[in-house]
């Protein structure tokens, strides 16, 4: 099953409530995916700074920070539950190499405005552990997972991020991900898990790095990705949704002058302001809808 949610704020006055909105959306989708949960928050861009979201298997944050600051100048480490948000000016290529020498840390995502958190457990507990309610930002994407084809681990949890400020959540499953994984890996896209969604995320990263737009990439995906899916994809500029041609995985969109919300079921957005007067529709199969700056 799995639950997917996304919210894009058109009106900045709600930015401080982004985390609160997403918390409600994730909580009501806990029934669709009780195994693990994760979310990506986009906040304002920090010029010439990168934020690395890292999952740590030790609680010795101070020691990790100390070790890292020996290798990296101007480092700021924020610890939330079992995740660290590491802020530095160091470019991804170099920093990711350094991270590889730290077995206790695994990179979840990075970029100038994205922060990603994911964890095994009931979504209601996961959002509490990360204090999602306190987050602010411009848009956010979340996932509640009912595991099917890969293990219940943090690695198997969504969102997947395979490129700078990119992320993807998925309800459904892909059948040609093994072949696609091999061909993407040959092109230099790093895919770490055996999960099908990470391959789709890699496919999108590859399209974007070929200078295609998110919309074009998702349209190409309709031909190349075999299986059933509703995808919500995030970039630093906004978010997009696409459903496969058969469209057996649900999605509903509510749009007001202040925000656009997407969810697997309407009940996930029943708590949003003025939702009953929103324009509510179901995305058509094989069509890409996107919102952004």
């Amino acid at each position, binding site marked *: 099953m799995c639950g997917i949610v996304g919210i894009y704020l058109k009106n900045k006055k709600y930015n401080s409530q982004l985390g609160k909105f997403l918390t409600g959306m994730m909580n009501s989708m806990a029934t669709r995916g009780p195994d693990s949960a994760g979310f990506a928050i986009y906040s304002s861009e920090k010029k010439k700074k990168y934020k690395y979201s890292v999952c740590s298997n030790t609680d010795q944050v101070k020691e990790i920070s100390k070790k890292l600051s020996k290798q990296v100048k101007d480092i700021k480490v924020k610890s939330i539950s079992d995740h660290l948000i590491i802020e530095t000016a160091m470019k991804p290529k170099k920093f990711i190499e350094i991270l590889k020498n730290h077995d206790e840390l695994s990179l979840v995502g990075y970029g100038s405005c994205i922060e990603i958190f994911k964890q095994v457990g009931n979504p209601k507990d996961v959002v509490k552990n990360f204090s999602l309610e306190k987050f602010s930002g411009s848009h956010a994407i979340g996932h509640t997972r009912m595991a099917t084809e890969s293990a219940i681990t943090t690695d198997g949890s969504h969102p997947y991020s395979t490129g700078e400020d990119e992320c993807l959540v998925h309800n459904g499953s892909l059948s040609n991900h093994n072949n696609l994984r091999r061909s993407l890996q040959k092109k230099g896209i790093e895919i770490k898990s055996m999960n099908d969604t990470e391959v789709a995320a890699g496919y999108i990263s590859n399209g974007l790095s070929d200078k295609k737009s998110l919309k074009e990439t998702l349209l190409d995906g309709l031909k190349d990705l075999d299986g059933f899916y509703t995808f919500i994809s995030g970039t630093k500029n906004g978010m997009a949704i696409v459903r496969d041609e058969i469209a057996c995985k649900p999605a*509903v969109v509510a749009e007001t002058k202040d925000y656009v919300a997407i969810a697997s079921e*309407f009940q996930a957005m*029943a708590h949003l302001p003025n939702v009953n007067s929103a324009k509510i529709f179901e995305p058509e*199969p094989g069509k890409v809808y996107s919102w952004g700056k």
Partner: protein
Amino acid sequence: MNLNLKKESLRKVNETLQSIDRKSNKKIFKISNPDGNHAICAGLKDEIEVTIDGHTGYYCAGMNINANIIVNGNVGTGVAENMMSGTVHVKGNASQSAGATAHGGTLIIDGDTSSRCGISMKGIDIIVKGSVGHMSAFMAQSGNLVICGDAGDALGDSIYEANIFIKGKVKSLGADCEEKKMNKKDQNILRSLLKKASINESEIKNFKMYGSARKLYNFNIDNVSEY
């Protein structure tokens, strides 16, 4: 009687509606704050009127017998699925599989429905004032599907003896579905259905009728080499 889903549990509300005291005069109910909950008004069996103020989740009014249910909002997957009798009127849009497998009763949708509207319908009358998505009336066995807007791909795929009346465009027909000539009897069926949904009868002339070509009913010996 007002039932507030913010104050009472869904189970309690449904139980109240499912166990009506038939000697009582309480026949009119209102449900507020449905907030997309699933299975609201499922399994009702008495002649009561229930108005739901807001949007509902999956299987709203499923398995309905006798009750008249009005939704002032949108409904999720499988509204009035397996309905036996009664009326369900949705003032907004419906998601997929509206009226699925339903044996009887009337389902009126003022807006659009997404895919698989009337899938495997077995006697229900469905009137959609907007358009329907792909694979609508898939394996429809009996009953009538009236579409005032357009239909998506593969309309009436593998249809049996149900009738499809449509005013707008058909994107494509499914296997074994073909246009039929409308006779007096068919026109009368359509007229009474339009009347039920308060649509002007003079619209009849703008509708086309589709049904089964009955070519899938028996094995075609010309295809024997395929096996």
